[in-house]
């Protein structure tokens, strides 16, 4: 067991190092200079030596390997550097965003998973019948819907048309609410982005669950359970669904890692202050430190989710336990 974890540990450390290196290199391989975001739009009016002075001040004239060493040394001290664009510590920026993103993406993942499981089970149970075929069609339709489009439709209908929900933001700007009214306000702003994100996540969960249920339903122990005269409901939930949940659990755990990375498109359309929008803006701004920092946090959380899945699997699947 200890050897198993030691091996896994080395494996994850290598993945992390590889990812960190890639995080460092990729932004720098994009064409374009971060200079304009360092000093503002009028950078063209500066003299060449003023520009050179700035490039030097931000360490952008150092050879790549030195920048890399500085970056790694910073990481070791949990220092993600300062944003080029905002001048603030990257960690502070990410921490300010991550709450909003976890709220949005986390809840939508939970909702989508629960709905997907229930819907998938129900469809598989009535395989080939109207409910199943209709569901399959609906899932395909939802799956192929671009999230920005769905978001715009929601905004047009529920925000601009009916005015039930706000058009943008995570809370009413400048309202100065506290406590309970603030929570209600945040929930009210969350509704449309959450609905959008949930709706586009459901089909994936549904399809996996349905397929998994179908293969479980073909197993002999289902026939056995049925022939024992157990109630259909009991067979469906106790025998079939529990076993069919395994692939969904895997997908759920993997997605859990991406909860902190946010949902770029949905966050951008709704002007939601999450990590996804931060990432999008950092790409446009060539804000290397923010890009690196965000990818780093993302990498760590994906790896953590994987470790979580590794640890959790023996608990939910006895076969994995025995195989070891």
């Amino acid at each position, binding site marked *: 067991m200890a050897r198993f974890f030691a091996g896994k540990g080395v494996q994850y450390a290598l993945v992390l190092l590889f990812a960190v290196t890639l995080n460092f290199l990729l932004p720098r391989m994009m064409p374009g200079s971060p200079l304009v975001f360092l000093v503002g*739009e009028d950078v063209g009016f500066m003299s060449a030596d003023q520009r050179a002075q700035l490039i030097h001040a931000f360490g952008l004239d150092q050879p790549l390997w030195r920048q890399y060493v500085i970056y790694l040394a910073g990481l070791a001290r949990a220092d993600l550097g300062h944003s080029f664009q905002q*001048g603030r510590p990257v960690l502070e920026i990410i921490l300010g965003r991550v709450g909003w993103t976890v709220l949005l993406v986390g809840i939508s993942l939970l909702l989508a998973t629960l709905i997907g499981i229930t819907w998938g089970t129900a469809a598989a149970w009535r395989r080939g019948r109207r409910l199943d075929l209709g569901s399959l069609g609906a899932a395909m339709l939802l799956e192929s819907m671009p999230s920005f489009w769905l978001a715009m439709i929601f905004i047009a209908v529920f925000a601009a048309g009916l005015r039930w929900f706000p058009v943008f933001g995570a809370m009413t700007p400048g309202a100065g609410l506290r406590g309970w009214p603030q929570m209600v306000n945040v929930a009210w702003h969350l509704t449309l982005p959450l609905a959008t994100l949930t709706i586009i996540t459901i089909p994936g969960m549904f399809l996996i669950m349905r397929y998994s249920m179908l293969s479980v339903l073909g197993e002999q122990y289902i026939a056995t359970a049925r022939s024992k005269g157990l109630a259909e409901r009991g067979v469906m939930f106790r025998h079939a669904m529990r076993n069919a949940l395994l692939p969904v659990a895997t997908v759920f755990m993997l997605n859990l890692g991406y909860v902190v990375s946010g949902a770029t498109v949905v966050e951008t359309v709704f002007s939601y202050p999450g990590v996804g929008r931060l990432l999008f803006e950092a790409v446009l701004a060539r804000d290397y430190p923010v890009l690196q920092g965000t990818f780093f946090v993302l990498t760590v959380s994906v790896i953590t989710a994987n470790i979580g899945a590794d640890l959790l699997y023996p608990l939910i699947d006895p076969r994995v336990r025995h195989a070891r």
Partner: protein
Amino acid sequence: MIASLVLLGLALPATQAQTGAVRLAITRDEGWLNPYTYQTGFPGWNIMTLVYDTLYYPDANNEPIPWLVRDTRVSIDGRTWTLTLRPNLRWHDGRPLTSDDVKFTFEYAAKVAHSRWTPTTRNLEGVDAPNPQTVVFRLKQPDAGFRLRTLADVPVLPRHIWESVTTVAAARAFRNTVGSGPYRVEEVQDNQFYRLVATPQYFAGPVKVRELVLPIVRDATVSFTALQAGQIDATSRVLTPELVAQFEKTQGLKVARGAGFASTILQFNLEHPLLRDVRLRRAIANAINTNLMVRLLMLGYAVVGSPGYLHPDSPFYAQGLRFEASKARAVTILNEAGYTDRNSDGIREAPDGTPLQFTVLTLAGNPIRIRGAELIRTWLKDVGIGLTIRVAEDAAIIDQVWPDFDVCKGRRFDMSMFGWSAPVMTRPTALVDLFHSNCQRGTINIGGYKNPEVDRLGEQLVVTVDLARQKQIASQMQQIIARDLPIHVLFYQDTIMAYRPSAYDKWVFQKGQGYVTKLSFVDPPK
């Protein structure tokens, strides 16, 4: 003291009601809203100047008017400017604002690099503060743009606060927002909104809106929808043409329209072996029907470009200068210059056999420019010139057209859809920045244009302080530019902005730029 209180009392009409709160959407995060952290030239600078004051301020016609300054004397040689500050100026923290702060500001800008403030210090020999009310600027050379580009642009910093912030990195991370302007920054929610609150005793007079909420709305469509739904009262964004008619009909919204000083141009690379030929550029310009382009793309909400760059509403516009496109003339010019289709593939070839096939770069986030490029491709095809459109994002285009924002570093492109923001149109020295062949002077001459006559006039213009003479030189320069066509100005999009009059109706429309100006919230000091 008593006398000044009485005067103040007279200056404040007792009946003037202050509007409660106005929500004005902005396009992106503007840092802590101080002079070293705000991000965008528009609306970032405009919003920042609600918190900080400049010595002068551009009025509705973009003419600089005295703001913190009561009296200005210029020496005959134009090199010594003696400014007297208004009495009783105070920082938000109650300390007095003196000439010492002004002197500190310009010395600070010279030391701590900022793309907008630092270049203004290049021509400064020194700044003196002989007494708390008087500040003396000593210039190396007379400067045509000194009032607008320096005095009306650089915000005065409080010395007692910024003194200890000595590096660029520290200045860019500095969160203090103590200024002297009509508004204090009350709340900053990262990437969500700003809340500014009017200072109770502003020297220039009563502030018309008590609280300004500035939500950050990244997406244009969303911000217009929010305006229609009543979630915001105004937006710094200019309405897209297709929305104008709809917004004019919408109950509860008002649309303000005026000339726009932002340009849309077809930029040529003058170092390109074919495009360096003025006959070819002239033929291309003739093939492009800008009148039709304005009707198709802008639904008429734009003014057709002037070949001298400057907008007909600019005070420096060369009267009567215009470009009449003609496809027939384009064909004639090409034929006479020996550009003919030798292999009958529909594309003409240069005398040495090189086909007239070019790539035009255009910005991914700007559908109007993409559609404009498509129109140009069609029209050029008609006269036998091939055009490939390459759509790329901003940083990638800059990398090819204007590497590191340094025209001295050359260029790697054929043509590009491009544009300059409104301030480039208003400064009298814009033509020098745009067209001087020395890359240190022509800092935005991204096409690499060279003409000794333009250089000579430009050098004259920058040191000319007399307005009439400035206009005369600018006019001569535009005539030459119109002949050489280093760029082809397609159009200037009108500035069309919408707002909810029920929330606030006293917006001041700054010519060419719109209503996000300090003048919308406070009258100029008397």
